[in-house]
């Protein structure tokens, strides 16, 4: 079964790679299998890990005094599925409102604390290794880059004069940031392809030591 699996995986891998030559039947077939298998995979994992373990084991846990509340979540979940039925589809807004409200409430705090408050603090606080020339430069550049970057994102005032100059500096910092991100993206994408080529030439063809 393992050998068959490796051959099948190799065929599917080549099928997807064949898209590089041009869109073709094999690629489309592989793509469709991918979509179906993924949907099935997610369907099953959410069934067992959430609905079975979280809901079923939760409501049957006699030690939990609040177990009955889980039925409300179940009811809201079922309401989500009404979207598939035209007439009562509006019922799905209730669970959707729950998801949106919960996410908004949590994000409002977590993003403010971790991504704004702590970051501002870290920008103006002297680092532990402060003292060397290098640390002066790094500290100053991070503070300058963060400030000028934020100035660039402030569109309520026209980018002219000192303000415009600061915004320009902000763009330069952002461009270096995007360049670094591009470099890392290249690294990432190549790594992913390496993984597949290693499978083809190593596990399947056995050519790699």
């Amino acid at each position, binding site marked *: 079964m393992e050998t068959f699996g490796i051959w099948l995986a190799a065929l599917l891998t*080549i099928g997807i790679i064949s898209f*590089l*030559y*041009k869109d*073709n039947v094999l690629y489309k077939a592989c793509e469709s299998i991918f979509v179906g298998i993924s949907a099935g*995979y*997610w369907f099953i*994992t*959410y069934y067992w*890990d*959430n609905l079975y*373990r*979280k809901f079923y*084991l*939760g409501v049957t*846990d006699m030690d939990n005094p609040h177990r009955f509340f889980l039925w409300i979540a179940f009811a809201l979940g079922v309401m989500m599925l009404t979207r598939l039925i035209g007439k009562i589809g509006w019922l799905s807004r209730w669970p959707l409102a729950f998801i949106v409200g*919960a996410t908004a409430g*949590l994000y409002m705090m*977590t*993003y403010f*604390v*971790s*991504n704004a408050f*702590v*970051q501002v*603090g*870290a920008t103006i606080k002297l680092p532990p290794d402060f003292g060397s020339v290098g640390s002066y430069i790094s500290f100053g550049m*991070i503070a300058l880059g963060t400030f000028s970057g934020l100035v660039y994102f402030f569109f309520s005032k026209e980018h002219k004069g000192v303000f415009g100059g600061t915004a320009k500096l902000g763009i330069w910092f952002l461009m270096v*940031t995007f360049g*670094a*991100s591009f470099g*890392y*993206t*290249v*690294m*990432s994408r*190549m*790594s*992913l*392809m*390496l*993984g*597949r*080529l*290693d499978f083809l*030439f*190593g596990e*399947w*063809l*056995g*050519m*790699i*030591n």
Partner: protein
Amino acid sequence: MKTKEFIVTAIIIVVLLLCKFVLPKPIQFSPTISWIVTILLGLVFAFIFYLTIKGKPVERRIVFLLVGISLVVPFFMQFKLPLKISPEVQQVYDKLASLPPGSKVLASFDYDPPSAPELQPMAEAFVKYAFEHDIKIIMMGLWPQGPQQANQAVEAAFEENPALRDQVKYGVDYVNLGFQSGNEFVVLRMGESFKSMFPSDLNYTPYDSIPLLKNVSNFSNIDWSINFSAGKPGTVEWIQVAVDRYNLPMSAGNTAVQAPMVYPYLNAGQLLGLMGGMSGAAEFEKLTNLPGKATTFLLSQTFAHVVVILFIIIGNVAFLRSRKETK
């Protein structure tokens, strides 16, 4: 199927079958052959450079083919490459190495197979190191595929060091809690009670029956945590909830796409070390003295980067030349 496509398909099938059944294996180039192949690749690029500045850029399939060759050929080469450790990877290792035997580590596997080439080597090196140093691992995933990737990392550790199969006991030295949906809400609930989110482990063993989890109720019972992340939910969500709200000490391994975005957290001290992409994984493998896939891939990765840089240079030289001519 047109004749041209039929011929291409036939050639590919014949080449692959030859590789599979006829060629002697494994293939390994001697250093001389490796150099010759590298020089030949360089000549091909010189030719592309010539064509491009002459105003005849090569078509994209040639670019694809060259990238493919540059990734594959180094698999068979024998160049030894020195690898320098970056401070953020060193920080991850220092934290791991400072843990006394018996420490409990929470490892969240928040990725799926597409990101495995980057993150699996980190995960495997971490799991092997932890098993060999009696560090207990509580595994979980915010991605459905994560727990399966965790199982694969455990299996790889056992294959690498078969003695571990007898020494390391499931439920005592490591446990896989599986996946729960809810992204940061899972982390939030775990801040109060792990059991509320994971009433059982992956195999439906009740939480309270697992020896390793006897005295683990929330993050306060965890000595250190590591997060292998390919996106959302992942490192950012763990930092926002577990680190900033519950003071969980955490390091992370990220895909290279995500890593640059995480640096502000590293600078602010919210994250204790970061392994970014395959190069981060290779550095971690070197530090733990457990060379794996990332180390093997380093040469191919190097070739790939050089190829992309060459393409950028060629494209830009041609661009600047044409601009000059226009002026």
